[in-house]
């Protein structure tokens, strides 16, 4: 009986702890590059992310090879020449919502948040701070953000010959639909 009580207590604690964590394995991250010569976009609908609403911790992981392009040659160049995805298959972000108290997770609505943390692309880690929104909806949480990154900050070398075709600042779009873990 004691054992059963212990199991029940542990189970309750586990449930309480897990209710704080939200997960998605089909989050979206896309990037867009606009120059007068060419528009390039890559879309990835297989981003894994976990959000802990009790601490504000948020992590993202993405496989570089999961990015989809309209044209096969772009995908090849992206993987082989720029991201070297055979050697460096993943990118990740690990950070925290810094104004967590602004978000009422019990009340549906859209809340402006700031997220700070480490963004690792191409094995180079940079501290970033970005603005985004947390949307509390019935049965889940959505997170959205748009920010810019500079390829050279992540030691992604773009040859002079094609530099004019790729924007200095790439626009990154993040869209997550979390459900309770």
């Amino acid at each position: 009986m004691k054992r059963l009580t212990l199991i029940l207590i542990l189970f309750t604690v586990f449930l309480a702890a897990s209710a704080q964590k939200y997960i998605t394995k089909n989050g979206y991250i896309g990037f867009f590059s606009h120059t007068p010569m060419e528009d390039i976009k890559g879309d990835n609908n297989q981003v894994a992310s976990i959000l802990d609403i009790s601490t504000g911790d948020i992590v993202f992981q993405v496989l570089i090879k999961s990015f989809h392009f309209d044209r096969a040659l772009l995908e090849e160049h992206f993987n082989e020449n720029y991201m070297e995805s055979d050697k460096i298959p993943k990118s990740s972000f690990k950070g925290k919502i810094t104004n967590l108290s602004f978000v009422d997770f019990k009340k549906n609505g859209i809340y402006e948040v700031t997220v700070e943390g480490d963004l690792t692309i191409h094995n180079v880690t940079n501290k970033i701070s970005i603005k985004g929104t947390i949307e509390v909806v019935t049965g889940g949480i959505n997170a959205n953000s748009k920010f810019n990154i500079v390829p050279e900050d992540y030691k992604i070398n773009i040859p002079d010959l094609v530099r004019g075709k790729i924007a200095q600042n790439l626009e990154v779009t993040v869209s997550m639909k979390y459900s309770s873990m």
Partner: protein
Amino acid sequence: MKTPVKIALAVVLLIAIAGIGGALYLYNLKPQDLNKVKPHFVMTSADLQKAFETDESASSAKYINKIIEVTGEIASVKQGEKNFINISLRTSNDLSSVNCTFPSSDTTFFKTGSLITVRGICSGFLMDVLLKNCAIVEGTK
């Protein structure tokens, strides 16, 4: 102009046109339609997931960038962003699936609980085994 010179010019011109044509063709080439190519591997979603769970590095070397035809039960169907559909196929691990992305917005053929066979290019393993640019082979269609 002498005839040999004319011929030489014509040849150069032809090569140039072929070159430009070839470059344009490559430049505009769409991602492969996987229904028109043979898969490298044919297996169940459970076996594919198990392979990555047991030995990720060996399975990465074996399956990444390869076309895999996989059969499994649909655990969930989700509308992704920018006209993509995500489906996950059940495996023997409840926390890890085979996650397939289709460049389409038509969910007609995807029904939770039914068996489906899809072809996709393996991009590796996160929490799930990821397949992209998928096409339906048979099943609910």
